[in-house]
């Protein structure tokens, strides 16, 4: 692939657990020990060493936004520091084909005693901008941060949100060819996060590559078309964001539900699919089907399957059940399986929604069990916020209804 601007080739990184000798008193015995011990080749682990990353390979194209996801400790931060050049890989090569800017911390190098204005210049040049570029973009930066009236105040008087806004405003004007972004967006309020995501999308649309390292799945699905899932230092999955994120989520939920053996019945299979096939990423208003398979361990009678959705704040935004949709009650014996398919139109606002399945007794209020079965991600062409998409549009005043 000739268009790759960044290629990570068989990269590994070894770390040492526990204390490094950091005083001369510890060093001298350590040196003697090392001199006596036979030399170990680079591909093997010594005692107390471990691989933070092992044979990681991926690449990104011009104008592409690539997500790197994974659990805590999967190696995301190490990957980020290697990409940024802050650390060197133990083995393997990273080819960087363009001007790379890494945003690991907003407002890196900000000094509390300096004013916002002074810090913009300082931070800008630390991030690699020429002073001339900063001067040219200065008004735009201040404008973007929304801190015009505080720009000559020392940043030690800023709130943490203001600090982050100013930091991001500088970063947003970097004009890099490759932008590597950490979890920096988790600071700041909702509007700030939206604005930051929009800006990153603009950067990618402008032809630069964005690499977004995060465990904020909604943000990743919204921004990135492709994803790399790291698990214990290795690439566990890579490909279109929808598929990779589905792998990531499924690894948790179904397995967890099946493991809880005390339930009289459980959800043994759950699939989300659109017209194009199995997916977790849907556009607002799209028609989807949820296939639910329930397996009984004991005799259960007169129960209904209900499905619910909660938003990121765990607020239930929607629920229904086979009972409320007019289906008869189910009765099952041990080992029986039944399948139910719900079809619905997802008139939801962009964001992530958690799906839950509950099995409950028809006429008495008895629960057979509740299962978190997955997460779906909604994107929309129109910028609506909240939980529902009411399909808004502007019409001329006084125009008749279409």
């Amino acid at each position: 692939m000739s268009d790759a601007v960044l290629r990570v080739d068989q990269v590994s990184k070894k770390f040492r657990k526990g204390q490094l000798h950091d005083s001369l008193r510890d060093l001298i015995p350590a040196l003697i020990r090392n001199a006596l011990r036979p030399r170990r080749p680079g591909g093997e682990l010594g005692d107390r060493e471990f691989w933070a990353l092992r044979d990681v390979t991926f690449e990104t194209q011009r104008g592409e936004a690539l997500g790197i996801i994974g659990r805590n400790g999967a190696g995301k931060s190490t990957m980020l520091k290697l990409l940024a050049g802050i650390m060197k890989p133990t083995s393997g090569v990273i080819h960087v084909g363009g001007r790379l800017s890494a945003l690991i911390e907003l407002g890196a190098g900000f000094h509390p005693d300096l004013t916002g204005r002074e810090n913009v210049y300082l931070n800008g040049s630390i991030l690699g901008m020429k002073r001339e570029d900063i001067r040219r973009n200065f008004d735009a930066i201040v404008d973007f941060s929304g801190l015009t009236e505080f720009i000559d105040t020392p940043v030690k008087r800023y709130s943490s949100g203001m600090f982050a806004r100013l930091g991001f405003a500088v970063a947003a004007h970097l004009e890099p060819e490759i932008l590597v972004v950490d979890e920096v967006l988790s600071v700041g309020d909702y509007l700030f996060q939206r604005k930051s995501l929009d800006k990153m999308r603009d950067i990618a649309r402008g032809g630069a590559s964005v690499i977004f390292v995060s465990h904020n799945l909604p943000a990743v699905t919204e921004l990135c078309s492709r994803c790399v899932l790291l698990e214990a230092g290795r690439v566990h999955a890579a490909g279109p964001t929808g598929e990779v994120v589905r792998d990531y989520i499924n690894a948790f939920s179904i397995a967890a539900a099946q493991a809880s053996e005390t339930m009289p019945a459980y959800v043994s299979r759950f699939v989300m699919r659109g017209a194009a096939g199995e997916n977790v990423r849907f556009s607002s208003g799209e028609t989807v089907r949820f296939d639910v398979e329930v397996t009984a361990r004991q005799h259960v009678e007169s129960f209904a399957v209900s499905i619910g959705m909660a938003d990121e704040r765990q607020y239930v935004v929607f629920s229904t059940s086979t009972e409320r949709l007019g289906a008869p009650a189910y009765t099952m014996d041990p080992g029986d399986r039944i399948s139910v398919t719900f079809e619905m139109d997802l008139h939801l606002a962009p964001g992530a929604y958690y799906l839950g399945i509950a099995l409950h007794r028809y006429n008495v209020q008895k629960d057979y069990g509740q299962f978190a079965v997955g997460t779906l991600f909604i994107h929309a062409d129109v910028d609506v916020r909240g939980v529902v998409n009411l399909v808004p549009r502007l019409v001329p005043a006084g125009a008749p209804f279409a």
Partner: protein
Amino acid sequence: MIADRLRALAAHREILFMITWREVVVKYKQSLMGFLWAILMPLVIVGAGILVRGGFAYLAHQPLRADDIAAVTLKSVPWAFAVASIRFATNSLSSNANLVTRIYVPREIFPLSAIGSQLVDFGMAAVPLIIVLAIAGVGVSVQLLWVPLILVILVLLVAALGIVLSAGSLFFRDVKYLVEVMLTFAIFVTPVLYDVDTFARWKTWLMLNPIAPLLEGLTAAVIHHRPPDLPWLAYSAGFTLVALLSAFAVFAKLEPRFAESV
């Protein structure tokens, strides 16, 4: 290798400038106190010098000469610069830990900017120094042309030490304390308060300290209007060159491990 480092530094010179500027601005924000900091250390040294010189003169049953006071005053400023530079440079990587772990720049920038900000203090202190020397009537001669050369060697020597010590103190906390002890006692083995000629027999030993020929050279050129002791000056210059090359080599070797060790 070293050429690569220098090229990388040259490419990042704006960052070097901005971090130096940050150090200076933060210090001079309260401008009066900032300026006092710049001349405080030299003033203390001059005070100590008058005491020591007075003591020598008393023991030798000779009057305290104006030349001697002028010499101490002259040497106090570069000496204060050297001490403060080494101290700040040694701590520069640890005190910028959050930049070292989050941004990639050639890390020599941190000790160098610490020295750069001290250079601004040096310039500040040089103004009253020149006035004092002018009032004391040391006069002007063609020998003053040696001064810039000597100062360049001094700055490069301090840079070499600062670069090595900053890396060292990142890996070994004790380096910081060792440096403090050395800097405290260095004034006894460096001809600041006295001239090496006072210790005729031990002159050679004292001059082996690479800063000594520089300070003596300054005194010779400015106060006595004669050229510095050239073989010794060449020794300092050679020492500086070797130190600088080794400093860059050591730093380049250790740098990949910085982010993991801060």
